[in-house]
C-alpha cells in the first residue's frame, strides 16, 4: 500500500502535491494554462482569471482503492485584478494519511500576464515506527497570452533547495500551452519534469457540446494512459466526472461538484 501511495502524481521522496479536479483529470491534467476553480492545485496564476467566487469538492478513488482515495476542497475569491484561493486535501487512510492545507494568491500583472504563488502546509501521519512530519512547501506560476487564442503557462513546485529542510521533497516544473479553436474546442499540451524523473508529456482537449455539456479526453506519458471526462453545468452547480487508465493498476475515477457564486465567466 505504501508503494502504491508513493506512486501518486508528483510523488517525491515524500509526497506533498496532490492532484485534484475532475475537469482537469479528464484532460490528463494538461491544465496549467486553463483557468478554473482548481487552479489553486495546478497554476495559481490562473486564479485571477476566475470571474466570480466559487467553491468545489472533489473525490478521487485512485485505482479503485479507497485507501488511496483523495478528498479535496477548495474555494476561489476574486477581487479586481487579483484573487485568493484556499484548498484542503486529505488522502490515504488511517495508517498512512496526508493532509495539505494551501493558501494561494494570484494577480493580473498586465493585460495578458498573471502570476500566482501558493504556500502549503503538509502533514503526513504514519502508523507504527514510520515517521510523522510536517512540511511547508511553496509553489508558483505564470500565465500569459501568446495571442488572442493561445495561452501559455509555467509552474514551479518546491523551488527551494532541500538543504533548507530535513525531509527532502521533490521538485516539479511544468510548462505548456493551450489553444482555443473555432467550434468550442480547447487543445492543451504540457511538459512536466519531476526531480529524479524524465520529462513527461500530457495532452488533452475539452469540447463544449452545447451550453451545458463538456467532453474531455487526454493522454499522459508519465503513467502512460488515457483519460476521459464529461462535465455538466446547471446554475449554480457544475458536476464533472473523469476516468483515467493505468496500464497495470487499473482505473482511477474522479468526481467533482462545484458551486459558482455569481455569474460564471472566465476572463481572457
Amino acid at each position, binding site marked *: 500500500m505504501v508503494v502504491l501511495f508513493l506512486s501518486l502524481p508528483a510523488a517525491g521522496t515524500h509526497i506533498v502535491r496532490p492532484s485534484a479536479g475532475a475537469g482537469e483529470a479528464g484532460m490528463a491534467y494538461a491544465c496549467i494554462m486553463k483557468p478554473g476553480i482548481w487552479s489553486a492545485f495546478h497554476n495559481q496564476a490562473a486564479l485571477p482569471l476566475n470571474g466570480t467566487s466559487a467553491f468545489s469538492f472533489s473525490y478521487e478513488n485512485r485505482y479503485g482503492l479507497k485507501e488511496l482515495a483523495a478528498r479535496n476542497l477548495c474555494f476561489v*475569491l476574486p*477581487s*479586481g485584478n*487579483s*484573487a*485568493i484561493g484556499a484548498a484542503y486535501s486529505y488522502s490515504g487512510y488511517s495508517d498512512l494519511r496526508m493532509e495539505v492545507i494551501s*493558501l494561494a*494568491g*494570484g*494577480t493580473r*500583472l*498586465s493585460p*495578458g*500576464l498573471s*502570476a*500566482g*504563488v501558493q*504556500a502549503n502546509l503538509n502533514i503526513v501521519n504514519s502508523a507504527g515506527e514510520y515517521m510523522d512530519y510536517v512540511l511547508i512547501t511553496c509553489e*508558483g506560476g*505564470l500565465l*500569459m497570452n*501568446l495571442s488572442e487564442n493561445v495561452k*501559455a503557462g*509555467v509552474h*514551479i513546485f518546491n*523551488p527551494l*533547495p*532541500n*538543504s533548507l529542510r530535513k525531509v*527532502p521533497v521533490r*521538485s*516539479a*516544473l511544468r*510548462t505548456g*500551452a493551450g489553444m482555443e479553436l473555432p467550434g468550442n474546442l480547447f487543445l492543451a499540451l504540457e*511538459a*512536466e*519534469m*519531476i*526531480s*529524479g*524523473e*524524465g*520529462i513527461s508529456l500530457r495532452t488533452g482537449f475539452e469540447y463544449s457540446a452545447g451550453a451545458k455539456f463538456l467532453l474531455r479526453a487526454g493522454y499522459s506519458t508519465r503513467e502512460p494512459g488515457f483519460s476521459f471526462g464529461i462535465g455538466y453545468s446547471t446554475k449554480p452547480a457544475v458536476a464533472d466526472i473523469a476516468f483515467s487508465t493505468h496500464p497495470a493498476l487499473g482505473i482511477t475515477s474522479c468526481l467533482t461538484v462545484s458551486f459558482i457564486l455569481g455569474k460564471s465567466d472566465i476572463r481572457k
Partner: protein
Amino acid sequence: MKPSVIKAIRIFIYTLILPAWFIYDIKAQEKTNEEMIRSMAEEISSTGENSADLELFTENIHDLEIDPVRINLGSLKENRRLFFLSEYQIRALSEYVKKNGKIISVNEISSISGFDNETAAMIAPFITLEESINRGNYQSRKPRQTLLSNFSVKPGFKDPDAAGSQWKMLTKYRFGAGRFSAGFTSEKDAGEKYFSGTPLMPDFFSGFLSFNGTGILREVIAGDFSAQFGSGAVINTGFRSGLSVAVPGVLTPICDIRPHTSTEENNFFRGMAVTLGKGKIETTLFASFNNIDATINNSGDSLNKSVTSLYKSGIHNTEAALGKKDVLKEFTWGINTSVYFRWVSAGIIVTENIFSLPFSSGSSGPEDFYDFCGTRNSLAGIWYSLSAGRFIISGEVASGHAMKHAVTESVSFVPADRISFSFLYRYYAPGFISFHGKSAFSGSAPANEEAILGSIKFEAARNFFISAGTEFIKHPWAAYLTCFPSSSLLSEVRADYMPHKFRIETVYRFRSGSSDLNVTRGVPDIKDVKTHSVTLKVKHMVSDRLLLTSRADIKNCNSGISTGMMLCNDLIWQPAAAPVKLWFRYALFSTGGWDTRIYAYENDLTDSFSLPALYGKGTRTYVMIEFKPVKPVMLRVKYGITSRMEDSGTEGFINELKLQIRVSF
C-alpha cells in the same frame, strides 16, 4: 463584498507575491543586447566542448558593443569584425554601401541581399552608422577607462590540498584615448595563490599597449596579443568560426591582430606585433617570448630535461600544478603578407616556434607516434579568397614539421536571397603540428583528421527558417582513447520560427563515433557511440522588460541505454521603477550519466559566462541581480545552487556566489 474584506485580500496578495507585483509596472523601453548575446552564446554552447571559444566569443561580443562596426565605411575588413555573419552577408553589406551610399537606418539593412529583419535586428547593437575615423568609445579622443572586478566562491567548499584560498578573482582594466589603448588583466582561480613566483606576481597577469593608425603604420601592439592569419591552420589564437554544422558562419580567411584581454593563460603571444600597409598590400610582423605551462620529465639529469606535454588548463591550485607553471620558454616569430583586391585576396604566412626544452617522443601508445619532438617547429602557409558572383571560394595550404601538410577549402553559394549553401573540406595530416593554429570546425592544435562538411540554410516561409548540416570526419591514425583509425559523423537540423514577440527554436543533433572499449588486457574492442539530442526552446517577450524562456532537452546515447532530459525555465526582468535587472532560472535534469550530460548556457557576470554540465538527477537554480546606482557603476551579484541526488539516496549541493563591480569613466 465588504471593503474591509477586499482590503484584506489585497494585503494578503501584495504580501505573498510582492516580488512579482513590481512587474505590473511594465513600460516599453529599448531592447537590450543581452538577449542577442545570450542567443548566440547558446548556439556556441550547444555542444559544450568549446568553453575556450565561448570565452573568446563573449569577449568579442563585448568588444563589439564597446567598439561597434562602422558599416558605412564599406570596408570588408571592418565588416568582418561581425564574425557571426556569413562571408556573403559581409560582402553584400560592403557592396551595398559602395553602390548606394551610406545606410541611414538599421531597417535599411534588411533590404540588402542575404539579410532579413531578424538578422538586421541581431547586428543592430554591434554596428554604428557613423563613419568617424575615431572608432567607438575606446578610440574616441576623450579618454575612457573601465575597471572590472569579479569575485566568486563556492561557499562551504574546502580543498585541503589547495595552495590558496577558494576565491576566484579577476580584475580587468582598459584605457582608451584617441588611437591609443592599453589595459591589463589579472586573475586567480579557486585554490590558487594570488601571488606566486619570483618576483611575486598574480597567478595570471596580462597587459598591452596598442596603437591604431591609418597610414603605413596601421596597428602596433606591445605586450600580450592574439593573432589570426588566413584560415587559421598556421596561426589563430583568437575565436574560431564553425561551431554549428548547420550554421557554419564565416569560413573565409581573416587577418587580424588584437590585444589579448581574455583569461586564456597559455595560447597567446607576448611581445610585439606591427601591421604595415600601403594601398592593397599589408604586412604583419610579430615576435613573442612567453613562458608557458608544461609537464617536464625530470627523470634524467638536468641536461636531459624534456617536455612530456603542455599543461593547458591554467589551473595552479596544488603544489604539483604550481610546479608546471611557466616552466617552458617559447619564442615565436612570424610574418604575414596579404594583398587585397575587390574580388580576390591572398596571403602568405611563415612562422616558427622555438622552445627552451626539447619535447620528448611519446611512448605511451600508438596515438603518440606523430607527436612533436625537438625544440623547433616551423610552419608556412598560403591562403586565398575569391568572390565570384554568388560564389565565394577560399582556402589555405600549410606545411610544417616533417613536411606534414594541412589543407582547407571552403565554398559558399547563395543562389537566391533566401537560400545558401556552404561546403568545407579540411585535411590535417597526422604529424602536422601547429601550436597556435585552429581553423573552422577544427579542435585546438588540429592534426590527424580529414573532414568534409555541407550545410544549407533557407527561409521556408515568412519568419520560418530551416538550416541543416552534416560533417563526416576521418581520423587516419590512432587518437586519444582510440587505438585505431576511426571516423565520426555529426548532423544537425534546426528550425526556427520567429514571429513578433516570441520565437520557437528546435534543434536535432546526431553524433556517431567510435573509441576503445575498456578491457583489462589485450587489444581493446571497438565501442561505437551514437548520440541523438533534441532541444526545443520557446522564448516569449512578454514586454520589453520581461522575457520568459522555456527549454526542453532530450539526449539519448546508444539507443536508449542512457537518456538525459532537462526542463528549464528562465525569466529576465528589468523593472521600470528601479535601476535593476533580474535573471532567474529553474531547471530540472535527469540523465543516465556523463555521456548524456546536458549543457545549459547561463547568463553570468559581464564579460564572463557560465556553462554548467548537468548530469545525474537534480535541479539547477540561479538568481542574478544587476544594480546600477549611478551611471558609471554597475554591480552584479549571482547566487546559484546545483543539487544532485547521490547513489546513496542523499542529496548533494554545490553553491556558488559571484560578485562583480564595473566602473566606467
